């Protein structure tokens, strides 16, 4: 814990960290930003919800469809709980094989989660209609974030060489 008022690093995602660096801020990774946590968490939840909602048959009666869409809210949460557990087993297996050993499990989980959400977003883009717009926003954000991650990695390498 700390009781200081000094502004420290405050972003987790590379895109925001690059923006912080451009404004002479602290570009180190941090997990203390409520807005970032909510935005990313809700975005992943929304994309997975829309992905599964796409599978609800359209020939049902309105009340049946409404009920299913309501139940889907909880189903998506349970789905992710199971996915997280399966992912953790996959990560442990990969670590046994000598992969992903240098990063914490929750970071590795973040990579797998990003891949799953992007696959769902891609499916939304292909499906058309308004969910495609949300899927496209996600895909663009992921692309920008990956580019920013590459910039940060390049910058870190350059500064290490300079030292």
């Amino acid at each position, binding site marked *: 814990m*700390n009781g200081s008022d000094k502004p420290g690093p405050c972003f*987790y995602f590379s895109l925001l960290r690059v923006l912080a660096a451009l404004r002479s801020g602290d570009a180190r990774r941090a997990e*203390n930003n409520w807005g970032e*946590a909510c935005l990313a968490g809700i975005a992943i939840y929304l994309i997975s919800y829309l992905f599964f909602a796409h599978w609800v048959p359209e020939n049902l009666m309105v009340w049946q469809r409404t009920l299913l869409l309501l139940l889907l809210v909880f189903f998506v949460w349970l789905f992710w709980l199971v996915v997280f557990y399966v992912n953790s087993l996959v990560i442990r297996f990969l670590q046994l094989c000598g992969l992903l050993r240098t990063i*914490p499990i*929750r970071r590795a989980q973040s990579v797998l989660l990003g891949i799953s959400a992007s696959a769902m977003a891609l499916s939304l883009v292909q499906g058309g209609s308004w969910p495609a717009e949300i899927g496209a926003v996600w895909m663009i954000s992921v692309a920008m974030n990956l580019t920013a991650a590459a910039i940060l990695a390049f910058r870190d390498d350059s500064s290490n060489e300079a030292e």
Partner: protein
Amino acid sequence: MMAPSSASRLGRFAVRGVFWREYLDWATINLPFYVYPVNVFFFTLFFFFFAAPARRAIVANLAVVLPGSGPAMNHLRAFRTLWNFAWTITDAALYKLIRAEFAYEIVGAESLEQLGASPSAIVLTAHMGNYDLGAALFADKFNREIRMVRAPEPDRQTAEHLSSSLEQTGAGAVKVDYNTGGALLSFDLLNALRAGEIVSIQGDRVDGEVAQVSALLFGTNVQLPNGPFVLAQVAGVPIYPLFIARAGYRRYQVIVYEPIVVVRTSHSREKDIADAVTKWCAVLEETVSHRWDQWFAFIPIFSPDERKR
């Protein structure tokens, strides 16, 4: 070794079973931080429905704390209280397992410095905010050992998990005792105070067969534990009211009030204790009225007869 019975296996999944605490530890290590807001929301929703006695207790307590608030609004407030509870135990797990950084500000810094410097004292707190994290913070900041007295957990495995969590969070400087009503603990605590330790007790509710004292809280009669006051009087140590309130995402407020001294006059021991209890109730009332959404007293504090008045 005996195999666990099916009842105890199922008990793991009860609302106060150890399964949920273990899941929280697992999630802390395995899940990225941005998954927490959605996860905490759904778990709060889950417990809002399945932890019905706790929900009813919160609603009943809120009816006294916020007299103008109707039952429907109090149910929404109960959700908010459970949501805050979920965040505080999540934060405690984050600190315990990955030593996550938390920002905090101190309200009443002078009293906190006094407490840190005092040879021994009683910290009187409530089931409010993040008292587990607070004990660890205090032990860390002042390099002092602290002995926490908690109400016993109904589930043995959960109690063991909580004790080891607290001791892990406090890096060995926090020791946990359970308030079981026996005289042995009182002597233990008295010896600890005489040996210069700091004892932390939750003084906002009576749980189990412990010595009680009647008091007036929010204009209503309540029973509070009298142990802290008797102990302070016998050991001749001050009582520091202290609360750790959640102030935002990974932000806390440490609120310390001026010490309550339980004087020993020649007149009446009960009167001296009653005076100290009255002062404690004033502090508790002020804190709870401002932070009712962080009062995790999951049993009815005010008796139904009193609430009807």
